């Protein structure tokens, strides 16, 4: 076929044109073999620019188009759509990136123009061998998985079922609820956290469309958007939740006591325990690590006292495989470890607490039944110091980012303290007060004005124990003086960080994390709930620090994305998949071994690609010594042509 290739070189205003002689690039390319149209234009992505693409295709009967402009991540789709409007197959339009990879990183016009020419010419040579392709239609599994059942996961799961979708809700802990479960009241309204969360948890347990899998973790994933296969490993279910009557006969006989996670270590629990009274699923559970009974010679007391025979030490972990169409990851946050805050006595002094521990002290369901007292001596603290930005906004030593919710919850803590200990004095060390949010600023103001909380702008340099008190050495930068407070209790507003399992789940699901370890969204502005992997969405604090309303809205947003995705009968799968050149294949299976997606099998002694499973990574291409396999539109011929074009 006669090649009729068109080229547009974009000025991008001055973005490209300032460093690249776009006219020259267009003129030079006009001389290339097969190029029948080559022009420059000021803004290709503008409406007239796109129209020019359509017109150029139609007027010149083009069978290949190269737009030399910005990164393909930005406008590949734009120009492919435009090409389609001009009756040119979308896959016969390619982008040459002369902005990010050229104009923006070089200053010398001559040099940059030369490089832009090479980049564009390589794309021209590539597009001249592009095939017209159509997306591959893939059936969709109308079933979603939500990983992490905190408020984000719960909200997402419920929203999904509202749309009629089945949901597998996977939670690592023995109960759903996550960190919100531990909170006493929520700002700025001071309504009881459990009171608003528990009904949702019950809805989850009662929802027949939700398969709840607690004490479970995602082990592996295969497949692709619309058709994931997920292996979920559930810990051995030593206590049968169906049989457990919640009689609590078992805990008194259990000889093992370990710190209670629910109370952030402020109390102990037994190896057999119920995470908290209203746990969902409502059942006792056996802590495998702590239990002695897994070796019945040593212990077996709880089994003996269990009348209903709900306990079975011989239970093994189970792995189930689920067909899943889309995934929401909402694995939440952990507080930055107290052990990092040595200068504040974190992890060293029992009366230096983190925010969540303080929540437990305030909470009616907590160890002290809502009475604020020092863990060390159970005395009511009369002077209490809150330190904000503990571990946040400190790129040298700790986390560089702002954890966003600390200002608010510290104000809440101080207020709650004053409500519990009206004669006490609360001090808050802060750097800035960030109270953007509905009713937030008013809440902070109230804490100052109504509750007499003393806000000190400045950092704390040290906290140390002196005469049974905690001496806080700080500075009040507004007053310009050093401050020393002998406090009974110090509460550190610890930074938020992604929960411990986030790194692992990201690795398993092949979704990226940002530099701080939070799950990375596909685009910070335009795709805030999408991960870089199609079909996997993000919600809650695993994606970045956020408060409850924000978490709930992101969960809803992620759910609505999933609902939209799974509302289609078919999904479009990229047609840039591997293709076997049959006569060359000898069936050596190297590609079969190399394929990460198990997309290649041997059929009649020749490799055969399952186009739906193939992601087009080209691992097969890289290992085939016979060059018997190629990825469509990134063929070895095309790479060869591109190398030639660059080196010519």
């Amino acid at each position, binding site marked *: 076929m006669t090649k009729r290739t068109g080229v547009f070189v974009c000025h991008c205003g001055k973005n490209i044109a300032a460093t690249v002689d776009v006219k020259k690039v267009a003129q030079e390319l006009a001389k290339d073999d097969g190029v029948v149209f080559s022009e420059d234009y000021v803004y290709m992505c503008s409406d007239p620019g796109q129209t020019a693409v359509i017109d150029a295709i139609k007027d010149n009967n083009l069978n290949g188009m190269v737009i030399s402009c910005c*990164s*393909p*991540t930005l406008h590949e789709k734009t120009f492919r759509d435009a090409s389609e409007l001009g009756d040119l197959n979308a896959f016969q339009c390619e982008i040459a*990136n002369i*902005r*990010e*990879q*050229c*104009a*923006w*990183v*070089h*200053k*010398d016009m001559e*040099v*940059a123009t*030369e*490089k832009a020419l*090479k*980049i564009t010419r*390589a794309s021209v040579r590539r597009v001249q061998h592009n095939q017209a392709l159509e997306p591959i239609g893939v059936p969709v599994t109308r079933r979603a998985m939500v990983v992490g059942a905190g408020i984000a996961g719960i909200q997402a799961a419920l929203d999904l079922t509202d749309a009629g979708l089945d949901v597998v809700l996977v939670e690592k802990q023995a109960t759903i609820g996550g960190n919100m479960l531990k909170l006493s009241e929520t700002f700025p309204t001071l309504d009881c956290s459990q009171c608003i969360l528990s009904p949702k948890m019950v809805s989850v347990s009662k929802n027949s469309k939700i398969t709840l899998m607690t004490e479970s973790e995602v082990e592996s994933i295969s497949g692709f958007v619309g058709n994931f296969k997920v292996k979920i490993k559930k810990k051995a279910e030593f206590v049968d939740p169906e049989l457990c009557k919640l009689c609590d006969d078992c805990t008194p006989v259990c000889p093992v006591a370990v710190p209670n996670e629910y109370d952030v270590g402020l109390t102990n629990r037994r190896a057999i325990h119920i995470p908290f009274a209203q746990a969902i699923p409502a059942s006792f559970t056996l802590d495998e690590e702590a239990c002695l009974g897994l070796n019945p010679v040593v212990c077996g007391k709880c089994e003996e006292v269990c009348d209903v025979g709900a306990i079975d030490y011989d239970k093994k972990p189970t792995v189930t495989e689920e067909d899943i169409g889309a995934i929401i990851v909402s694995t939440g946050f952990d507080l930055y470890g107290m052990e990092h805050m040595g200068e504040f006595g974190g992890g060293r002094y029992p009366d230096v607490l983190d925010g969540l521990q303080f929540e437990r002290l305030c909470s009616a369901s907590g160890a002290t039944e809502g009475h604020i007292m020092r863990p060390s001596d159970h005395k009511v603290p009369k002077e209490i110091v809150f330190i904000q930005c503990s571990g946040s906004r400190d790129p040298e030593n700790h986390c560089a980012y702002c954890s966003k919710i600390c200002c608010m919850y510290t104000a809440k803590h101080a207020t709650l303290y004053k409500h519990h200990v009206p004669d006490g004095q609360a001090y808050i060390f802060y750097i800035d007060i960030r109270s953007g949010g509905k009713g937030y600023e008013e809440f902070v103001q109230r804490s100052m004005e109504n509750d007499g909380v003393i806000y000190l702008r400045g950092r704390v340099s040290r906290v140390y124990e002196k005469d049974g008190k905690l001496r806080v050495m700080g500075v009040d930068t507004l007053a310009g003086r050093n401050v020393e407070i002998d406090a009974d209790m110090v509460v550190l507003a610890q930074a938020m960080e992604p929960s411990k399992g986030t790194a692992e789940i990201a*690795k398993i699901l*092949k979704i*990226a994390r*940002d*530099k701080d370890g939070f799950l990375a969204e596909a685009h910070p502005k335009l795709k805030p709930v999408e991960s*870089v*992997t199609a079909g996997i969405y993000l919600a809650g604090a695993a994606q970045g620090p956020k408060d409850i309303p924000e978490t709930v809205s992101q969960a809803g947003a992620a759910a609505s994305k999933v609902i939209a995705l799974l509302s289609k009968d078919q999904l479009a799968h990229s047609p*840039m998949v591997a293709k076997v050149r049959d006569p060359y294949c000898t069936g050596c299976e190297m590609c079969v071994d*190399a394929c*990460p*997606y198990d997309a290649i099998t041997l059929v009649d002694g020749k490799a055969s690609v399952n186009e739906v499973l193939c*992601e*087009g*990574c*080209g*691992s097969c*291409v*890289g*290992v085939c010594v016979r*060059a018997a396999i190629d*990825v469509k539109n*990134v063929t*070895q011929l095309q*790479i*060869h042509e*591109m*190398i*030639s074009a*660059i*080196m*010519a």
Partner: protein
Amino acid sequence: MSNPSQTTEVQDFEPRIVAFLCKWCSSAGSDLAGVSRIQYSANATPITIPCSGSVSPMYILSAFNKGADGVLISGCHPGDCHYMEGNYLARRKLYLVKELLQFIGLESDRFRMSWVSAAEGAKFAEVVDEFVEDLRVLGPQNRLKAER
């Protein structure tokens, strides 16, 4: 064939590098360098490929044959491959290619591999700049260049 280090003037020599960048990490990383306006040498012309694992050794040999002074292959860090394991396959294969090229006496600085993530725009620029400097010292690649 003459010894290039004796016959070339390092000053005037602009190395020509073919850079194979994986689409998900290194190409995105170079995009980030662009967005961040980090300036670096223009000697490397990028070819975006799906994954470092898709690199056939032929690409490297071909680039040298066609006169490339250096060949750079850049992919995602181990564990970060968008396709799960392509970069591991690449690493093993390209290790062997590197060893082979060294074995026959191609200057070892001419073939380079790097891991550059989408967040490492600055690293990408550094990798290119360092490569260019090393190649300047070596002068033009004549050993595998086609005699045409």
